[in-house]
């Protein structure tokens, strides 16, 4: 088990290194890194300082080591657009808004998705099941950016129920969380429905019934516990969808998170900030995947005895 954890940790580090290499190469190999990292308004002194700082006059390998070294000390360069501010600071101050939105969306998604999946499975073939399946199908097909706009138009503009955009009260969370979670909600629902159906037809559920356990215990303990394993294995993918969604959804709802920061930086061609956002998100992403693996170990006893 220790070997398993160490192995996963090594994989996580490798992934992070790979991503840093990709980012590094993108900035060095395509076009002029100085222009990319400094913007148009740079002076000759700025240029010289940057070349010195990033070892741009030396070999690519030296440059990469310098890049890594800087990154390890938290130096990702300065923003081109936002008045030469430290790129990492800019990203870190936007992080809480994104994390809280993702957390709300993930909770909403998991709770609702699992409930809907279980409901559909135990009422298989009924009207409830059909409605759940249609909703899930639509949820998997609707593009998030468009759903967000439609929700703003209908719920906020026409009905005046919730704020159109921005950040602050709980009302601000409702529409963005719904938008960001819709695809994942649909995926969780389908996954839970399918694995619940498998579990409900299994021999161990029969045995639980043979013992005379109540239907609630049979479904919620014996069947659901097994149906959640695939959900956990897909959590990493769900998190990825949420991050991808964050860029789009934060832009639509003017949510002051790192997704919107990434979008703004693209518009203003602020490369240092974009590369920092990407690296930070990659790190988060890898951390999340690692947590998922550990969670998997915790809930599935069969995994614990491997490696």
């Amino acid at each position, binding site marked *: 088990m220790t070997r398993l954890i160490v192995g996963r940790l090594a994989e996580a580090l490798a992934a992070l290194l790979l991503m840093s290499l990709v980012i590094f190469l993108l900035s060095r190999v395509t076009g002029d890194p100085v222009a990319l990292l400094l913007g148009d308004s740079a002076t000759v002194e700025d240029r010289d300082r940057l070349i010195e700082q990033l070892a741009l006059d030396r070999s690519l390998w030296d440059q990469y080591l310098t890049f890594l070294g800087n990154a390890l000390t938290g130096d990702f360069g300065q923003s081109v657009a936002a008045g030469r501010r430290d790129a990492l600071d800019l990203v870190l101050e936007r992080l809480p808004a994104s994390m809280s939105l993702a957390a709300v969306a993930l909770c909403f998604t998991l709770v609702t998705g699992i409930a809907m999946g279980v409901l559909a499975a135990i009422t298989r073939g009924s009207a409830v099941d059909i409605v759940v399946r249609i909703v899930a199908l639509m949820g998997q097909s609707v593009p998030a950016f468009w759903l967000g706009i439609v929700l703003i138009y209908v719920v906020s503009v026409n009905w005046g129920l919730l704020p159109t955009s921005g950040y602050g009260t709980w009302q601000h969370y409702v529409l963005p969380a719904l938008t960001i979670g819709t695809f994942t909600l649909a995926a969780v629902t389908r996954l839970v429905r399918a694995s619940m159906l498998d579990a409900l*037809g299994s*021999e*161990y559920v029969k*045995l639980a*019934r043979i*013992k*005379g356990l109540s239907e609630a215990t049979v479904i919620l303990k014996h069947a659901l516990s097994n149906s959640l*394993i695939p959900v956990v294995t897909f959590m990493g993918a769900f998190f990825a969808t949420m991050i991808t969604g964050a860029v789009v959804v934060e832009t639509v709802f003017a949510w002051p998170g790192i997704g919107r920061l990434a979008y703004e930086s693209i518009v203003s061609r602020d490369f240092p900030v974009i590369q920092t956002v990407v690296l930070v998100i990659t790190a988060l992403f890898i951390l999340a995947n690692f947590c998922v693996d550990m969670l998997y170990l915790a809930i599935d006893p069969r995994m614990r*005895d491997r490696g």
Partner: protein
Amino acid sequence: MSLLSIRNLTVRLGRAAHAPAILEDVSLDVQPGETVGLVGESGSGKSTLGMSVLRLTPPLLAEGTSGEILWNGQDVLKMRGKALRQLRGGEMSMILQDPMASLNPVFSVGSQLGEALKRAGRADLQAAAEAALAEVNIPSPAERLRSFPHQLSGGMRQRVVSAIGLAQEPKLIICDEPTTALDATIQFQFLELLRALQKAHGMAMLFVTHDFGVVARICDRVAVMYAGRIVETGPVREIFRNPRHPYTRALLAAVPSTREAPDRLPVIDGAPPSVGNRPEGCAFHPRCPLATDRCRTQPRMEPQAPGHDAACWHAKEVAAA
């Protein structure tokens, strides 16, 4: 009064009257303490019969179930909620076919056994659980309680399943081919164990199997099933000496003289008809050497000897042969 009395049980694939039937007009009694073998090829409906008694059939079959299953005079098919749960585990229990699949992979042995013991109202769960495992000959029970199913061998798992089945001291235990998935040597051990447990607890047992050899070892009475019907029933010795249905005779001829159990029943020509494809009348007639035109109508169960019934127009000829 019989402990269990199945009356005219028919199980169709759905509610429609013309839906194909897996079981047709099956009647069978089990007395307290008795072991009844239910023998047939796969697809004969024997497992469905076992499942129906505990109301464990999937929804489609449950909808298509008619007849009566009387437990101490009460119809199991009419039971709801709490009464049904009281029946399961407490009164009747079951050992399933596949020990690999019948334990929940995410809970420990102790937790799964504990659930059953708790329902039986045991005070000291730990001690009771250890005793239950010891009774099915599991070494170092305290340790095994902490194990998860994947850490146990097949034979061990089947013992755990048996311990769970017996935990609430049922009056009847249904065994659905409990040895099929086990190695030959372990099969014998397990059968001996079952017989010992049955004696110790004074339970009745309904033993579903395709293997007449197993029936000979542990059953008092036997019912032979073919294509969803019971075609012959009687005391084991009587049936072995004096089979009256050509199908029973063919099955017995297939039992090898060695004690090794065959996996299938190979010697009868042809294959049993699939559900929904059953011939008119006696379903066995296309494979039967004695078949005549008369066999196109369904024969009824007729007494052949005391306690020995068979459904065959040519029962006398079988006896003479």
